[in-house]
């Protein structure tokens, strides 16, 4: 089983993305967090349990409480200590060049994906692992 985190506050988008993923890969476990803080709290709790850590994180930027940038700030410090390596993708509806440029300066971000996450892209990502 591959483990995928969806960190996004848009319920409908999450519902649809989960559907997209499960349609093409049944061996994937999708966990959802509706803002950065929820995901960060969970990651801190399980950071020493490799079997619980995700293979891939899909991170939205615009979220309440702790947005994607706030999450990345803490994640950068936390991730190197993880018991297992993982990939992080920003998945945002933003088409702002400023935000894309900003994400390039963060090494833990593998790629900036503009929503929606289509099945071809997901298969490519999951296939790499």
């Amino acid at each position: 089983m591959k483990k995928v985190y969806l960190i996004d506050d848009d319920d409908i988008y999450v519902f649809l993305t989960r559907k997209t993923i499960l349609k093409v890969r049944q061996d994937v476990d999708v966990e959802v967090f509706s803002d950065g803080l929820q995901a960060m709290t969970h990651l801190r709790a399980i950071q020493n349990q490799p079997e619980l850590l995700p293979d891939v994180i899909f991170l939205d930027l615009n979220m309440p409480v702790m947005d994607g940038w706030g999450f990345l700030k803490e994640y950068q410090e936390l991730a190197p200590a993880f018991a297992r390596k993982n990939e992080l993708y920003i998945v945002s509806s933003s088409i702002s060049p400023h935000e894309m440029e900003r994400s390039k300066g963060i090494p833990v971000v593998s790629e900036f994906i503009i929503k929606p996450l289509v099945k071809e892209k997901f298969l490519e990502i999951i296939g790499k692992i």
Partner: protein
Amino acid sequence: MINIPSLNNEAERIDALYVLEILDTGKEEEFDNIVKLASIISHSPVAALTFVDADRIWYKAKQGINCEETPRNNDVADTYPFFVAIPIVVNKHLVIGHLSVAGFEALTLTQEQHKGLALLAQQVVTLLQMRMPVINNSIKEFYESILNNIPQDIVVFDADHKYLFANPGAIKNEEFRKYIIGKDDFEYAAYRNRDPKIAEARRAQFLEVKNSGKAIGWEESQTDPEGNVITFLRRMFPMHDEQGKFIMVIGFGIDISERKSLEEKQSLIMERLAIQNTQLIDFCNVVSHNLRGPLINMAMLAEFIQESEDVEEQKLLVSKLEPVIDILKSTFNELVESIQIRQDNNVKSDNLNFAACLQEALDGLVEEMRKTEAKISIDFEDAPAIIYPHKYLASIFYNLISNAIKYQSPNRKLSLNLTSKIKEGNIVLTVKDNGLGIDLLKHKDNIFKIGKVFHRHPDAKGLGLFMTKTQVEAMGGKIWVESLPDEGSTFTVEFVNQNMNW
């Protein structure tokens, strides 16, 4: 007729001679008469008035000799058995020429004759000086008329900070301008019944220039009798004589009010441009997040509906379309409205009663108010009314109150406190709640931005406060928030120039 190899202070002597502008002038009766008198007094057939130029001796008047000029080194004097030259002295020590008499027989002048010639030589100087004031006056008038007509302030202080000169630009009133000469700023302030603070400042500036030997400059604003603020760019610079001794200070002032107000206008425009630029970026973000997001959802839903062969699943998917469309619609409407506010430069203002406008907002929130059992206290006594666009004020009340309802604390009943006061001539409205509050350290820059929300709340879209800010700023006002997490927030709106004329 006289041999003078070199005279003392040659350079100064030549300067003094040239200032007189006597060289190469025509025949003048006054000087001719002096030469005649010299000849009569000394019983000498030959007499001449000569001036010693840099490289020649020039004859202004003569008798018994036919000569225009000779080289400085000549032997004219040696050709006469009798020869006496009385120096023409200016500025106490500068010899510029001679009054000479000569004869063909050896002769000794009596003391009386000597005295007479000396008096004549002095008379030459007097005559020359009578010519000088004519020159000096015209030069003085020339420069004074320039100084007096320059539309700038010019003053000159002596080494003790007493006024030597002030032009009409500096002091318009002629009587005052005459008074100030020879006085200092303290005396002038007392004379004009003015605050001596300015004199103190001037003294400090003068001493700075005097002691440092360097020019200083500064900007200075004052209010004229009509109440206009006038800004001057002032400079003071020291003057030294040839020996490097400090002799005076020149003060110079230029009215830069116009430039200043242009600069202020420019920086205001820059400020507005910066705000508009930020708003544009906000717009880009809102289009990305708040419009593009729902559109993507709709597209994905449509695709799934098409692909699905299960009727129940299709129904479920269709039901999910509705909230997406609602969000899209309300976001779109608010965006359009905020663009209209920006473009609506000539929005109509009315005389509005705060209490009545608040009631309208509360009427629109009647269901929410009933549910929350909120307590509202109002104090609009200080400023009960305002001139403002009706829909803006109603919307400001509506957004601030619905914001307070939305973010009330689950641990206590919502209590709202609204006041309107006059502060420094402007109406200031405050809306204080005891709700969840906002962590300002984290969100300081984002509170009034579009699409920013700070709580996990189903209704949080982050558009209300952006709209409120847009409406307040469109009318030249300001809005800010003070807040502590879990204690509540106070929103303050400062309306500018919207007072009622009671």
